[in-house]
């Protein structure tokens, strides 16, 4: 919804968020990711850290979406306006997603840097951005869902971090290693299939696979549906 988008850009929270995001991006890419030392003109080091950055930053964006409405009582206002719940959920989600997208767009200097230093594979850069944007959306949909559960932003934040961490770690080698020892291979691949990381890795490398796309969109779809179900049921009681 437009209100949310406008709300983000008028509130200082948005700027704080963007600045922190950019600073951390730079920090991880250059210091920890050893951007220069790898001697390669690509953005692997940059995208590699996104799942972890998003883990803490995206829940901070999503947590207020419904929790605030509940706390301020404005939920009674919007749910009695002539708009359907689905429109509200999508509106809020899209606004926040676009906001995250604009934060991502603002990382463009790093693309320029790479282009200046060498000959990067722009295809990989673009799929990397698409993957990063989709992953942000998936995190955000979890945030929307937990936000509709509670009136407290803090609870929503923590829940989102925990759920997203689960999604992340499901594909992390130590975790999959833990399963491979005893579980059948199909279970391992299912668990792995749930991971954000697993689906992000391809795009990071420049491969835009339909399966990854479907995965992210279905995570978002599922979480937003859950969001709707929660809203309806909390209204009824």
């Amino acid at each position, binding site marked *: 919804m437009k*209100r949310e988008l406008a709300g983000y850009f008028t509130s200082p929270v948005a700027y704080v968020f963007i600045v922190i995001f950019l600073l951390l991006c730079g920090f991880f890419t250059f210091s920890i990711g050893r951007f220069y030392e790898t001697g390669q003109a690509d953005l692997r080091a940059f995208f590699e850290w996104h799942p972890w950055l998003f883990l803490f930053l995206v829940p901070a964006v999503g947590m207020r979406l419904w929790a605030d409405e509940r706390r301020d*009582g*404005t939920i009674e*206002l919007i749910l*009695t*306006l002539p708009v359907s719940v689905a429109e509200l959920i999508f509106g809020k989600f899209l606004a926040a997603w676009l906001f995250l997208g604009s934060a991502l767009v603002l990382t463009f200097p790093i693309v320029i840097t790479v282009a200046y230093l060498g000959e990067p594979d722009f295809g990989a850069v673009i799929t990397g951005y698409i993957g990063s944007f989709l992953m942000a959306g998936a995190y955000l949909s979890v945030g929307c869902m937990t936000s509709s559960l509670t009136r407290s932003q803090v609870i929503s934040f923590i829940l989102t971090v925990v759920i997203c961490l689960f999604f992340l770690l499901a594909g992390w080698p130590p975790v999959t290693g833990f399963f491979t020892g005893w579980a059948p291979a199909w279970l391992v691949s299912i668990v792995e299939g749930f991971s954000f990381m697993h689906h992000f890795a391809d795009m990071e490398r420049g491969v835009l696979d339909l399966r990854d796309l479907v995965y992210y969109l279905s995570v978002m779809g599922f979480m937003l549906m859950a969001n709707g179900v929660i809203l309806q049921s909390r*209204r009824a009681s």
Partner: protein
Amino acid sequence: MIEVKELTKRFGQKLAVDGISFKVGKGEVLGFLGPNAAGKSTTMRMITGYLPPSSGTALVGGYDIVRNSLQARRRIGYLPENAPAYPDMTVIAFLDFIAEVRGFTGRERRARVSATIDKCFLNDVRHQQVSTLSKGYNQRVCFAQAILHDPEYLIMDEPTDGLDPNQKHEVRSMIRDMAKDKTIILSTHNLEEVDVVCTRVIIIASGKIVADKTPLELKALSEFHGTACFTVCNAEPEGVIAGMEGLHGVKDVLKVGEGEGRFTLRAIPSDPSAPVAEVIVRYCLDRGIRLENMRIEEGRLDEVFRQITRPDQRAV
């Protein structure tokens, strides 16, 4: 026309609203009265589509609030309890947002927003953030939101709660002005308000309607209805009481107050619709008793309210 049919709401085991039915037509201002937790807000929330009813339904302008919720909501203006508004928005941005959601565009939207701002006396604060507003302004912002689309049906949950007497007066006169061509339902704890703005009163207790009358009819239920209260200053009250009790049409005379050589008495007529004023005035004139003042009471709403909503007396 709002038509409420057997509206029922259950929260778990608790029955909050128990089969309420009534109709309100254009030009009526219906006041919802009742003790806290009687089901007033829940009923309003169901009519506005915020809470789905457990059973029963309501028709707003012919649209069913359950099956045709969006159509019904389009016709309603709703001021929820505690007047919520987005704290981080300015007044004008908030109203603009509401206007947009209500489907107004371009020039009409700007015109509506500024007309509503004028109407609700919000000009001084139009660029101020909602979170910085005083309670009175906050209430008016939310009120503005409810009337922005000039709805046929206006539903307000405690519209004057937390306002000072001047602001209350303003809001009430706005409500009265709009009443001609709208259907209005409001809830209140303020009995004086019922008297000033409502054309009809529904009293709810424990989720049921216990009275549905005009304010005058309600007051007529009061035991003080039709009694004459008067002050005499140069006579002994005992003598006056004894003398008056024998008069035609006077059932009883009680002393209700005294001070500085004056006595205030209350004469209860044997028939509330037959006035006793004349009899009392003549009695006093004949005996040279100085009558300082006298008034005939219409009855007191607060007393009727207590009487009706007391758990043991539900027969009205």
